[in-house]
């Protein structure tokens, strides 16, 4: 029964994709959107079914492997269409399908004016299918397939407005960086397969325990390669630069793929392969250090930039850094707890951002916003809930989940304490930049658009590319001519209010000492871990929570001071420290660094190759060689094929003579 639920989870979005993409011409109005939402709701219901049926089993029996069919077990590769239903995959499936459902509902309204309405939902359903395949896949091959599929879906959705140059460029950038990750993943899979002879999870884990001793060179390399894959997908430094640009896609896409689900795949990957990381603590430590750097770095960037969606994108990078630290320090339940709450509040924030951007007629710069509170009360309240959760203010969900990670770092002791300290520092910054957005957007003097809205009109302006300011033609596939805000659209309201409730109360399943539901639920998956049951004492956790609450309050207070109490202060600070400001605004010059170290040298190399290698070797030898060989062969084949029957008979008899000669030589 459990496995049936598992397969049904995958079936629903797949059917949705097929139906919508085949029927895109005949589906009237918003039916495509509702169909897509219904498919995801089906998947969510099945995920609940899987949850209930897996809880019915004994804890030792909660890892259900189900194979639909096996591909050729030739060449000693035994790969099947296999899913693994265990607490981890069920949790991921629940989060993915649940949040996806709400975002689908939100999109039904939000994308209502878009030309590519059905196309959008076909992509979105395809994404959900791929993501579910990724988390449910029972072996490395299916994981890689799902991994590549979500990459493709992400590429398609970033470039959704394909006539927008910046969007297609961003899609390409995301794709290229993700391919780097894919290569890492594939090579890691190959390493593991060559050493353990298995590709299914249980086989790999069992085999690696036999094949490797702790910190064996191969296993460290394999884990580092897995980390490369995880970092590319989860936008961690140094493979993070694609995520802010991915905000070129429609806002619900940012909410779903680039905040709540796909980018957390890296966290899932590390949690899933935890037996390998525990065999290679060095790799886990490197991962944790890089992720620590990431969350601090991204938080500083978010303080200086002014694009609403990009701020949230950097905050996503930062929060995923926390999750990666959580799982890389072997506190799996903590990382996954934060993954879940983050999915709630970050999706909520993006939905709010979408509503704000719609109200501002496509404007994304927070410097041009202000005073929207009275015009958009619903958006304000929900956005506030999301912000408080992100800032880690008690009793919102982010407070509990983030601090569980930090507290665990302190508990590990040694140099891990530094990670914990960095966690608090970044938490302070987080609270600050989060409320910078809130105060800039909702407080202060109402801008023109806000006043229009208060009078009951919705601002409409020519569509401009938020990045370059070019005017765009809504007839040919840019965001449609109409805007939709949460205040006026019931589906958007429904999705946002539900998420607001979750963002507020989602933490209740992980209150230390009171309810460790999540930890106990996940126990069967991590039962083999050496760190199972290792947790800070309740007192330590509560102290941590108190410090976290104080940090959040301090950050919010600082933001209040800078942006509300003394509005000129931020500008003054920027003037006083122009270099720092510029450094942060240019996001530590990472793009420029890559441009200088990777792109430029590659371009130079390419130019050199074009001049020297291509003209000399490629055109001279390969094209003139292989290509010439093919072309020459073509000419010969066609010359021989001259249409004369007798010539054909001649070749036939010549071939016969050759064959006869060969056989006769054998006889002597």
């Amino acid at each position, binding site marked *: 029964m459990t496995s049936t639920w598992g397969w049904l989870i995958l079936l629903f979005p797949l059917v949705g994709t097929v139906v919508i993409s085949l029927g895109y011409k005949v589906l009237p109005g918003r039916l495509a959107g509702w169909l897509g939402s219904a498919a995801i709701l089906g998947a969510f219901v099945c995920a609940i079914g899987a949850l209930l049926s897996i809880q019915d089993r004994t804890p030792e029996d909660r890892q259900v492997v189900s194979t639909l069919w096996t591909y050729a077990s*030739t060449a000693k590769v035994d790969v099947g269409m296999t899913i693994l239903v265990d607490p981890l995959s069920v949790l991921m499936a629940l989060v993915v399908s649940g949040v996806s459902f709400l975002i689908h509902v939100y999109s039904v309204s939000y994308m209502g004016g878009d030309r590519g309405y059905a196309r959008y939902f076909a992509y979105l359903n395809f994404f959900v299918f791929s993501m579910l395949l990724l988390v449910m896949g029972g072996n490395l091959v299916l994981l890689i397939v799902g991994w590549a599929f979500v990459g493709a879906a992400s590429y398609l959705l970033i470039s959704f407005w394909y006539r927008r140059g910046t969007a297609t460029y961003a899609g390409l950038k995301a794709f290229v960086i993700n391919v780097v990750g894919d290569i890492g993943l594939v090579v890691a899979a190959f390493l593991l397969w060559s050493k353990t002879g298995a590709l299914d999870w249980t086989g790999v884990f069992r085999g690696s325990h036999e094949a490797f001793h702790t910190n064996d060179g191969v296993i460290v390399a394999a884990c580092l390669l897995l980390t490369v894959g995880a970092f590319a997908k989860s936008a961690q430094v140094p493979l993070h630069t694609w995520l802010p640009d991915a905000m070129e896609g429609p806002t619900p896409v940012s909410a779903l793929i680039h905040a709540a689900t796909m980018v957390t795949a890296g966290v899932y990957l590390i949690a899933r392969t935890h037996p390998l990381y525990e065999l290679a603590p060095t790799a886990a430590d490197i991962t944790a250090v890089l992720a620590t750097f990431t969350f601090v770095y991204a938080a500083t960037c978010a303080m200086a930039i002014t694009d609403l969606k990009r701020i949230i994108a950097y905050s996503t990078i930062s929060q995923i850094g926390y999750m990666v630290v959580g799982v890389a320090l072997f506190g799996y339940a903590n990382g996954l707890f934060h993954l879940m709450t983050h999915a709630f509040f970050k999706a909520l924030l993006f939905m709010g951002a979408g509503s704000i951007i719609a109200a501002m007629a496509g404007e994304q710069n927070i410097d041009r916003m202000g005073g929207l509170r009275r015009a958009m009360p619903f958006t304000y309240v929900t956005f506030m809930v999301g912000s408080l959760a992100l800032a880690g203010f008690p009793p919102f969900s982010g407070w509990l989940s983030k601090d569980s990670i930090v507290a665990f770092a302190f508990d590990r002791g040694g140099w891990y304490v530094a990670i914990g300290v960095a966690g608090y520092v970044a938490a302070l910054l987080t609270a600050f930049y989060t409320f910078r957005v809130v105060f800039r957007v909702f407080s202060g003097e109402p801008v023109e658009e806000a006043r229009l809205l208060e009078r009951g009109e919705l601002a409409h302006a020519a569509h401009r590319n938020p990045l370059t300011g070019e005017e765009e033609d809504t007839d040919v596939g840019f965001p449609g001519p109409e805007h939709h805000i949460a205040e006026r659209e019931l589906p958007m309201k429904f999705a946002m209010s539900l998420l607001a409730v979750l963002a507020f109360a989602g933490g209740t399943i992980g209150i230390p000492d009171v309810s460790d539901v999540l930890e106990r639920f996940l126990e069967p998956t991590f039962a083999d871990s050496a760190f199972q049951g290792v947790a800070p004492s309740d007192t330590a956790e509560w102290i941590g929570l108190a410090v976290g609450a104080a940090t959040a309050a301090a950050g919010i207070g600082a933001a209040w001071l800078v942006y509300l109490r003394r509005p000129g202060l931020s500008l003054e600070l920027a003037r006083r420290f122009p270099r720092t400001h510029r450094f942060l605004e240019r996001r530590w010059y990472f793009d420029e660094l890559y441009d200088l170290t990777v792109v430029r040298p590659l371009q130079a190399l390419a130019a050199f190759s074009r001049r020297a290698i291509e003209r000399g070797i490629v055109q001279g030898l390969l094209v003139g060689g292989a290509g010439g060989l093919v072309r020459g062969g073509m000419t010969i084949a066609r010359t021989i*094929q001259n249409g004369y029957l007798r010539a054909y008979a001649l070749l036939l008899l010549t071939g016969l003579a050759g064959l006869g000669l060969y056989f006769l030589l054998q006889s002597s």
Partner: protein
Amino acid sequence: MILPLADVPAPHIDYKGLSPLIALVGGTVLVLMAALLRGRFVQRSLLPLLTLGTLGAAMGLSIWVWSPGDHRPIVESALEVDALALSLSLVFYVAGIATVLLAHRSAALSDAGAGEYYTLLLSSVTGMVLLAEAANLITLFVGIELLSIPLYVLCASQVRRRASLEAGLKYLVIGSVGSATLLYGLALIYGAAGTTSFAGIDRALGDTVSLSDPLLLTGIALACAGLAFKASVAPFHQWTPDVYQGAPTPVTAFMAVATKAAAFAIFLRLFDSALLSAQFQWAPALAALATITIVVGNVGAIAQDSLKRMLAWSGVAQAGYILAGVVVGTQKGLEATVFYLLVYLLMNVAAFAVVIARERVSEWGDGMRALEGLGRAAPWLAWPMTIAMLALAGFPATAGFIGKFYLIDAAVDGDYAWLGVVIVAGSMISLVYYLRVVAVMWMGPMEVRLPSLPGRPRTAKPVGGWSPEADAWAQPEVTLVAVACAAATMFFGIWPNPLFDLVADVGTSLASLVG
């Protein structure tokens, strides 16, 4: 003198095992007789239905006869009804059914007369079944001629079209040279072994006949050339592009899949069972032929403008891939060969169906340009063609990929790893022309963008070459064949297990092969 002859005991005939053949022959006669009746209903509906019924009945009987693991010769060791024969019979029946559907609106049908057309088709199928079941040299020859002679006529059936006549004449003359060569080779093998039954030859080869007997080796060489001709293996392939292009396209589709399957059936029977002891002698030669075929076929296909010609050349290359499964002489090779033939049926019929649908309405005939912009205009045709091309090129998630993988795997397992490399290299060259078709369909300029004026449409379709008949569903049976075959190609690409089970059964049918 007469009396002793009267004592000859009648051979025991297993009518159950023979029933598919009896049904086919009966159906052939029935169709021929029914064709004498005049009337539009008879000619347009009854005859195709009778033909389909015959093929369906034969298919049903074949499945009824099928019992896993059981293979005993019937009719005094003339025929062998085993899984190999039955599974490939399915290919012939399906190809026949597809041809009937594809030919429904064909000009050849009225030129040749529907009755004759279907009768010839059915007798060709009978010949193929006979060939696949052949267990001695005489049935082999009868089968191969029974399948070829109706095809000569079918190729020339558009008697008023010069190309059709030319195809018929070329096929006939070159084919007869091939048959004569084969016959001479079979005569020499008989001379060396002293018996015509495959089992007898197998026994003699290990026992009384030396493997370096020149008589035997010359015989093998000649038989090899004759069969290579039927399977369009280079350098005996030259008739293929010309005949494929000139013949009526439904006939081409039938030849491309069914003849090839029949030729490989007998390749497998003759080389992998009767002559298996001489594998050291023939395998290197066949491997060399396979290599030449892969190179020649892929190179020849590159710059073709006629789709039928391109598919013909690609068929030559595919024959090279399939030959690898015969060369290795292992059970896995046998399985891979049959597997590939099964999926080859699906992908090729899908491609030809689309060519047929287009050549009837497009001014470009079977030229590459006939597909231009098809992706927009008729996705129900463009998708099957895309899938067929990708499958032929061996893209993952299509049945073609699994088939090719199977063949390469068999080659590597059978110590012919270099042949596997050749297959991969050939597939890489083949991307050039397969993807070109896909590109033409999806990237071709279809809509002309007009300067935008208020209240006017912004785009317009070019006038030439597009008509209401260009719609995919104007010829529902053709589209149906294309879609069904393409869907099956995808289906078996994702879930190949039914085919795996089937070929695993086939793998046991030649007892002489090692596992």
